[in-house]
C-alpha cells in the first residue's frame, strides 16, 4: 500500500462505519487518495511518520482529516488537540465525525480548533449525503491555506 500523496486521512475504529463511509466517498469519486487508520495512535503515527509510517515523506500532509471521536487508545479529541497545537500541522482541516450530539464534545472540539463537527446520521440516505457534502466542500470548494 502506498502512503504517498494521501489526500484524506480517515480515522475510524468501527470497520462498519469505515466501510460505509469509504463506499459513500467512492460513489462520489473521492476515494483514490484516502487512507484509513483504525485509532488515534495510528493517526498520529501517520502524521508524524512513526512506527509503520517511518518511511512516509514528512512534508507530505493530507488535505483533510476525517476524525472519529470515540476510539480506543488515543481518542479523536486527543488527536485534534495534538495536531491543532502543532504549528506545522494545525492548518490541516479536521472534520470531526461522531455518532452522537450528546455530551460536552461539540464545544470542546471547536475550542480545540476543529473545522467542522458532523453527527453521523443513522439513515443511510442522509449518511450518504453527509459524506458526499463533506467531500465536496473540503476537497473541492474549500481553498487550502498554501
Amino acid at each position, binding site marked *: 500500500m502506498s502512503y504517498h500523496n494521501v489526500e484524506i486521512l480517515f480515522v475510524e475504529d*468501527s470497520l*462498519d*462505519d469505515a466501510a*460505509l463511509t469509504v*463506499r459513500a466517498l467512492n460513489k462520489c469519486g473521492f476515494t483514490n487518495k484516502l487512507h484509513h487508520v483504525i485509532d488515534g495512535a495510528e493517526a498520529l503515527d501517520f502524521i508524524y511518520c512513526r512506527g509503520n509510517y517511518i518511511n512516509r515523506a514528512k512534508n507530505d500532509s493530507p488535505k483533510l482529516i476525517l476524525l472519529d471521536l*470515540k476510539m480506543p487508545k488515543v481518542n479523536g479529541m486527543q488527536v485534534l488537540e495534538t495536531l491543532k497545537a502543532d504549528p506545522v500541522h494545525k492548518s490541516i482541516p479536521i472534520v470531526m465525525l*461522531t*455518532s*452522537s*450530539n*450528546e*455530551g460536552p464534545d461539540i464545544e470542546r472540539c471547536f475550542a480545540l480548533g476543529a473545522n467542522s463537527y458532523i453527527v*453521523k*446520521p*443513522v*439513515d*443511510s*440516505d442522509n*449518511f*450518504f449525503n453527509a459524506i458526499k457534502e463533506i467531500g465536496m466542500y473540503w476537497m473541492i470548494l474549500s481553498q487550502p491555506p498554501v
Partner: protein
Amino acid sequence: MKNNDANELIIANKEIAFQQQEKENRAAELIIANKELLFQYEEKERRAAELIIANEELLFQNEEKERRAAELIIANKELAYQNEEKEKRAEELIVANRELKKAEDDIRKLNDKLEQKVTERTAQLESVNKELESFSYSVSHDLRAPIRAINGYTRILVEDYADKFDVEGTKVLQSIIHNSKKMGELIDDLLAFSKLGRKEVTVSEINMTNLVETVQQDLIFEEGENVPDFEINQLPNAEGDKSLIKQVWINLISNAVKYSRKKVGTKIEIGAYQNGNIVTYYIKDFGAGFDMKYYDKLFGVFQRLHSQEEFEGTGIGLAIVHKIVQRHSGTVWAESQLGEGSCFYFSLLSATNK
C-alpha cells in the same frame, strides 16, 4: 467733863453719820443686787421656756426617729425577701441556661447531621446524574452505530445486489431499512427527552404572539398537502424559557397540522385567556381528534393514540410538551372528540409587568 461729853457726842455723831452713810451705801448696793437678782430670775425663766420648747422639739424628733426605725425594719425585711427571691431566680436562670445550652448543642448536632446528610445526598444525586449522562451518551453513541450499520448494509444490498432478490426479498430489505431508521429516530427522541430534564430553565419575558407567529411561519408543508388556515389571536406575554416554550409551540402546532391533514379547508385557532397571574394558552384544531377514554396515555413517552399508518410519529412530542410545562410549574391538558378535533391548553405565569 462737859467737853469730854461733847467730844464724845461729836464722835458719837460722827459715828452715827458714818453708820448712816454706811447704811445708805448698803441700801444702794441692795437695790443694785436686787435688780441683779431680778434680771437673773428673768433670765432663768427665759431659759426655762426655751428648755421646754427644746424638750418638746427633742420629743418630736425622738418620735420621728422611732417611726423611721420601724419603717427601716420593714424595709430591711422587704430587702431580705427580695434578696432571697433574687437568689432563687438566679438558680432558676442557671438551670434554664444549662437547658438552653443543651438544646443548642442538640440543634447543632442535628444540623451537622442534616448537613452531612444533604452533602451525602447531593453527592449521590450528582453521581446518579453523571451516571445518567454517561448512560445517555452510551445509548446515543453505542446504539446508533450498529443501527447505522444495519441501515447502511441493507442499503448496499438494495443498491448493489438488487438482481439477487425477488419482489418479496426487496420488500423485506425495505422493511429493515425503514425499521432501523425508525429506531434511530426513537433513540434521538429519547435522548432529546432526557436532555430536557437536565437542561437549565432560563426564565425571561416571552413575547408570545411573536413566538407563535415565528413557529407558524417556519412550518414546512409538502406539495399537495392540506394547509389549514391559522387564526392567531393576540396573546399575553408570559414568563418562561423562550427556547423551551418555542419547542412546546412547535410540537403543539405541528401536531394540530398533522391531525388536520385529512380535512380540507380546516382551520387551527390559537388564543389565550388570563386568570389572575396565570395565563392559559390554547390551540384548537378540527382534525382527527382522539378518544378521551385513552386520555391518561396522551402525555406518556412513546404513547400513541393513532396507528403509524394513520398518522406517523414516535409519540414523544406531547411527552416533551408535558415535561417542559411541568418544568415551568405550569399545567397542560386537553379536550377532544374523535373525528371532531382537539383543543390543547397549557398555563404559565404571566409576565409580571404586562
